[in-house]
């Protein structure tokens, strides 16, 4: 039950993008088309889940024994960076179309604060390995939900007669704001 609540809360209530405001860069950058948002979601789910697990392991089995907790940010960034690199290499080979569609934002998952965020939150909240895995996965799902909803809206906005001054990122930010307001409705659940 706890696990399920954790899962739901990470997706809806404390959504990484719309509640914690983490991972805004890819959220805005890769949400112009539904298909790329889909690809980004896949990549983020992979990276976030794996990063949660690996960083948890590294933290508990490497840093803690040596009393190096203060190095966790550094270590996590290292892990995440190399993992993203890995995804990038694989994608470039396996799906060049998705690779070029994700463009600059793929390497930017490295600096996707959602990934680092989830790794650090896992430690802060003193989750065990199972909780860590679920939280990482659910957090990524929440990110995916937000970016997919958002990309759907943006595809439609692309066809709208938006005033010049608001075209593009401006209107996207306004929309993200309203979306975040709407997600506030979930506040208080679990």
């Amino acid at each position, binding site marked *: 039950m706890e696990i399920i609540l954790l899962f739901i809360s990470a997706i809806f209530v404390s959504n990484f993008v719309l509640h914690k405001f983490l991972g805004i860069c890819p959220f805005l950058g890769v949400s112009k088309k539904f298909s790329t948002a889909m690809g980004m979601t896949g990549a983020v789910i992979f990276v976030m889940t794996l990063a949660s697990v690996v960083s948890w392991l590294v933290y508990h089995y490497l840093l803690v024994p040596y009393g190096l907790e203060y190095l966790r940010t550094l270590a996590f960034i290292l892990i995440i960076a190399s993992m993203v690199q890995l995804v990038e290499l694989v994608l470039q080979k396996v799906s060049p179309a998705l690779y070029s569609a994700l463009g600059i934002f793929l390497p930017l998952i490295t600096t996707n604060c959602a990934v680092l965020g989830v790794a650090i939150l896992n430690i802060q909240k003193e989750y065990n390995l199972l909780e860590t895995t679920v939280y990482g996965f659910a957090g990524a799902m929440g990110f995916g939900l937000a970016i997919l909803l958002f990309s759907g809206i943006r595809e439609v906005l692309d066809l709208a007669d938006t*005033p010049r001054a608001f075209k593009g990122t401006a209107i996207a930010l306004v929309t993200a704001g309203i979306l975040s307001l709407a997600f506030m409705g979930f506040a208080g659940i679990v």
Partner: protein
Amino acid sequence: MSMEQDKTGASPPEVAAAGGDPPAPPPAKPAPPDKAEPPRAPRLVVSTSPHVHRDQDVPRIMRSVVWALVPGILVGLWFFGLAALQVYAIAVAGCLLFEWAFRRMLGRPGTLGDWSAVVTGLLLAMNLPAGSPWWLVVVGCLAAIVLGKQIYGGLGYNPFNPALVARVVLLVSFPVQMTTWPAQGGPLTVDATTAATPLGAIREALSVGQTVPQAMAGADFPVWKLLVGMRGGCLGEVSVIALLLGGLFLLRKGHIKWQVPVGFIATVFLFTGAAWLGDPERYANPLYHTFSGGLFLGAFFMATDMVTSPVTRRGMFIFAVGCGLITVIIRLWGGYPEGVSFAILLMNAATPLIDRYTKPQVFGAKRKLYEEAKAA
């Protein structure tokens, strides 16, 4: 009207109107003598087919919505009195003003004639507590018209229901004012004491450790009171019967499809019913849930907003069920006592995705039909 307009890259394709100048005088009459043979204006209009049109346009639809809102508004005025009138007046005037001013600022043609700003103003007022201070209403108008609609390009392009954007902006920004419910004091009320809403009463009771049956006994909201509208709440949401009347009118006119209100209300009823059967100590009965809060207002007038809901019937139904589910989740387990606005807003956000996955079946696209026909 369109030719003179700004035609830079960002501006939309426009329609060239043919009717600008009146048709040339018939040849029988002598031409006006003062003009030295200007190029003769052609008489015939050419456009693509069809050359006839249904007797229906956007302003007329919007006016129908206004008519449909009238019963709900009247009941609100009766119960909440002059304080309500003030809110309605400011909301409508404010929406019209912001609509006019913002369009003008952008150098776009005025759209007051389509009546959509009036509808937004009325709906916004109906979603506010009676006796909302004037500045709250004005901020709401600004949020609805500018943030919710015109920033996106105006009617038709807004992804979210403007009145709901405003309500949620206000609810999040001014929680105290937005949850202070004046008691119903009759038509001449100007200033009233506060009262509880049905959903708020339960929330309150649960938080002090009472059970739901105890709370309901204390709050005294029998179903007939809920139907008539004798309860605290937003201006326009109190009377189920009045709202139903307007909603049926719109259904009959064909401006809303039954899938939305039925799907929405039925989902709330069934879901809360299931919860109630599971634990009547913790959850109120489904009738109580169905007839309280802003469910009828939302289901008939907000979730049915054409612009922000799916275009296909199937999509509308999915949309409505989604609204119902989220509403109940927020009501039963969320921090806010009422979730209709949030639910509709969230489903507005999901509308493009619903549209994407509910494309209608193209005539003849089903391979099976074809095979069947061949066998026949």
